[in-house]
């Protein structure tokens, strides 16, 4: 408890030095707790402007290089830059660009680097954002690479928790679904390692977190438990983070149907949950969270998605050093 208080005091007195300036945001391990709290405070400020326009990014151009489909992440980055008064150029779909002619990633990034002040990249290959950052002089923000990282989603998820509870320390957080291949799990666990939290990993045995992530959690001394049913853990949770289980992970369709049924969030499965339980989901949702759950006091995933804009406004502003 004393540790928690000291941490929160430190958060309050964090200096005004902007360590985000010019930084590549590649993995959730690229920053510390102080930087993250600075970002959260900036995001809270940006919430006031999420339906108006600022001029802090006047004259700045952000390039979107999305090699993989995305709706929410792409649009929230674009909205964030437009709200800050900057402009956005978009490589467009892979089919419509030079990539269809066989241009490699390195050449594409070099071109975007010469046009834009900031590059936001999503790619199906793991490590692509790190590689892009090695090539580009402009800062690169990773908007998701393969099954490895999705650092801005993780920032947003932790920010939502912070806004809901006024703290992240002391929370008991459950992750349910595909914990093996969902890239946001990786990044969010990394972000949460900066706080004193207890994790509950709820998944079918074949979709438990990978050895790499479990080693990371042990190495950081994180407290966690593994469960194969939600009922075992639900009563003690402050946050339940649900991710989709994808059909293609199961060679046997019967097995998929069976697993899907038992990792689906319904009113019934929430019986025994605390009144204050907050349910998060990175979206898009298919049927892993029952529509009925949307009406409960627990559902926060749409608010979570909405916070993506102020959070990304804050990040762009800090990385590009915008001054009001």
């Amino acid at each position, binding site marked *: 408890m004393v540790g928690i208080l000291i941490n929160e005091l430190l958060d309050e007195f964090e200096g005004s030095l902007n360590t985000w300036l010019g930084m590549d945001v590649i993995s959730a391990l690229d920053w510390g707790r102080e930087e993250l709290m600075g970002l959260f405070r900036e995001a809270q400020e940006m919430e006031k402007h999420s339906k108006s326009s600022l001029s802090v990014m006047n004259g700045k151009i952000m390039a979107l290089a999305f090699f993989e489909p995305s709706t929410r992440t792409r649009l929230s980055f674009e909205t964030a830059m437009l709200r800050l008064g900057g402009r956005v150029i978009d490589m467009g779909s892979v089919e419509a660009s030079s990539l269809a002619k066989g241009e*490699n990633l*390195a050449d594409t990034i070099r071109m975007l680097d010469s046009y834009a002040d900031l590059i936001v990249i999503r790619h199906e290959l793991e*490590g692509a954002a790190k*590689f892009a950052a090695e090539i580009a002089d402009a800062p690169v923000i990773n908007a998701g690479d393969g099954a490895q990282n999705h650092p801005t989603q993780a920032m947003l998820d932790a920010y939502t928790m912070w806004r809901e509870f006024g703290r992240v320390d002391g929370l008991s957080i459950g992750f349910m679904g595909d914990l093996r291949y969902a890239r946001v799990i990786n990044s969010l666990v990394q972000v949460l390692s900066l706080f004193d939290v207890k994790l509950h990993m709820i998944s079918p045995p074949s979709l438990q977190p990978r050895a*790499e992530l479990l080693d990371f959690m042990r190495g950081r001394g994180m407290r966690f438990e593994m469960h194969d049913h939600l009922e075992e853990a639900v009563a003690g949770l402050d946050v339940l983070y649900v991710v989709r289980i994808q059909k293609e992970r199961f060679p046997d369709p019967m097995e998929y149907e069976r697993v899907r049924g038992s990792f689906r969030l319904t009113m019934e499965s929430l019986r025994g949950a605390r009144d204050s339980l907050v349910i998060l989901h990175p979206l898009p949702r298919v049927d892993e969270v029952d529509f009925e759950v949307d009406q409960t006091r627990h559902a926060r995933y749409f608010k979570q998605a909405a916070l993506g804009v102020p959070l990304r406004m804050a990040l762009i502003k800090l990385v590009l050093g915008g001054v009001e």
Partner: protein
Amino acid sequence: MSKELIISKIREGIVIDHVPAGRAMVILKILNISGLEGRVALVMNVESSKMGRKDIIKIEGRDLTHDELNLIALISPTATVNRVRNYEVAEKFKVQLPTKVRGIVRCKNPKCITNKPREPITSSFTVIKGGQAVLKCDYCGAYNSLEDVEKQLVSRSG
């Protein structure tokens, strides 16, 4: 009859000793030695006071590069290398597990950016030292076990 195997001394070359029993063939593979290049002596599964059983390799007229030493250290961390000049051991050292391995091994993750063709990128791993060392890809974060590395090296040179 004597229990010892008699192998003649080499004039110039290397002796790799204290190789874990059974690993000598893998080392020959990664050094690209088919047996037609020059004189090679291979002693396998012999008694060793330190290791119980071990393999020994003698190769005439050959030295080891820095990368080759790193690979040997990975798959055979107990190995000692003797450089022989004019029938005498001129230099003797234990191989050292490197902290980084660059370029010589491919990441096993097919979705790793380092496996994308036509990109100016070199594989890079951090060696995580433990009971058995693991290579962690610096790009995709995937663990590559020593068995993965061994399998790859053997299939590549074979």
